[in-house]
């Protein structure tokens, strides 16, 4: 990489961040046009990546599996490539014409139910994680277990029937220690983000420009 290949992306990043911060704080007529334009450019770059880089990478990986006839995998790869090409073709050739809703129908009837199925597994994964975590192993896990049980008893309708103190203690945990601790984490995260931004502006963080 030449000096300019290394430094130019860092310079462009720095200038863009500073000008965007400036338009957030200073009332300049027409500044929203500038930020809108930048946002549109970001979306444009993202759209190019979605349309070209993503499918290319996906097809290249699965084509390799098909060519090697990897057991238990290659038929699924054929299916994946076929679905990708069909969706791409419908989006490019059918949906832009007139008022066709084919692509939207495919999204609603194929992707949405599949996503909902995967999402619905979260409950089981949370139960499994809770089973592993909520154990009397040390002080931290014991506190977590105790807090978890108290919050569960606060939220479960039966908790208040067993003992009226459960909802009161649960509310106190959520409002006082939980909110306090969480706000502390969020404040520190925000300051960390500012520091990261300053390092980006000054060109010390250069991973986006191919540095490590």
């Amino acid at each position: 990489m030449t000096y300019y290949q290394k430094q130019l992306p860092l310079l462009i990043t720095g200038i863009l961040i500073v000008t965007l911060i400036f338009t957030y704080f200073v009332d300049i007529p027409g500044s929203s046009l500038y930020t809108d334009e930048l946002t549109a450019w970001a979306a444009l770059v993202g759209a190019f990546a979605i349309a070209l880089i993503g499918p290319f990478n996906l097809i290249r990986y699965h084509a390799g599996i098909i060519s090697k006839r990897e057991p238990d995998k290659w038929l699924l790869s054929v299916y994946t490539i076929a679905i990708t090409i069909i969706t791409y073709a419908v989006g490019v050739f059918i949906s832009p014409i007139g008022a066709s809703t084919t692509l939207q129908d495919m999204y609603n009837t194929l992707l949405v139910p599949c996503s909902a199925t995967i999402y619905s597994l979260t409950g089981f994964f949370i139960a499994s994680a809770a089973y592993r975590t909520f154990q009397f192993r040390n002080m931290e896990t014991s506190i977590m277990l105790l807090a978890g049980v108290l919050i569960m008893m606060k939220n479960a309708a039966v908790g208040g029937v067993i003992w009226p103190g459960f909802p009161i203690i649960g509310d106190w945990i959520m409002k006082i220690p939980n909110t306090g601790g969480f706000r502390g984490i969020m404040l520190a995260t925000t300051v960390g983000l500012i520091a990261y931004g300053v390092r980006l502006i000054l060109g010390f963080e250069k991973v986006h420009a191919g540095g490590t």
Partner: protein
Amino acid sequence: MSILIEGRSFEFLLLILASAFLAYYIYSARRGYRPQIRKMAPLEAIPEAIGRSVETGRPVLFSVGTSTLYSGGAPQTLAGLSVLGYTANIAVELDVKIAIPLLHPEVIPVADEIIRQAYITAGKVDEYDPVYSVRHYGKHTFSWTSGILGHLQREKPGAFIYMGSMLADSVMVAESGHRAGAMMIFGTASSGQMPFIVAAADYSLIGEELYAAGAYLSQDPVLLGSITGQDLTKALILALILLGTIFMTFGIDFLNNLFSM
């Protein structure tokens, strides 16, 4: 008439002060000041996790999360990519395969370049297999998540390192990683997912620790200096909170008015 937008003057002042603290410590580091920061166990555990992969002959799985390079979660993705550089260097040095499943296609060239650089640095560029290492599992969160779940069960990685923005996938992939027998090091600044990674991963970085990871791993005094500046900003905010509490207890509105300037 102020040139600043009403209600944002104090924010601006705080940003200038924070930047000044950071600039001062970066300048001090350049003049020889060596800041000391605490050990971060999750980052110290990365070589151990890769070593475990070497011993068991299993690959490393790395994720930079669910955010694009241009949305609100972009800094988390960039921080994750910094850790990827460090991880890839060690993995390539030790001849362990590393795979990175990506949700957003625009991250593909950046991740590809980082892993390629690791192979170039180790003098093994001929061994780099981008088809194995850089994979796109779809542009939808749950198609990507199911891709990772399958990857974990098929390839049984020895180490699973996940640094970046997280959504509902965090607990799913963590549990699946546990079943696959992977050592898991997770880090996120996504507030809703922090409790899950603390509960489910072997090591976790939360909040600001993720943003500091790149600086910590590089051990560059200039970058570490900026973390010292960051700590001074936190001290300032804590002092303001304390003062605000005292002032409001005695019915003095001064700080409240200042904050809403």
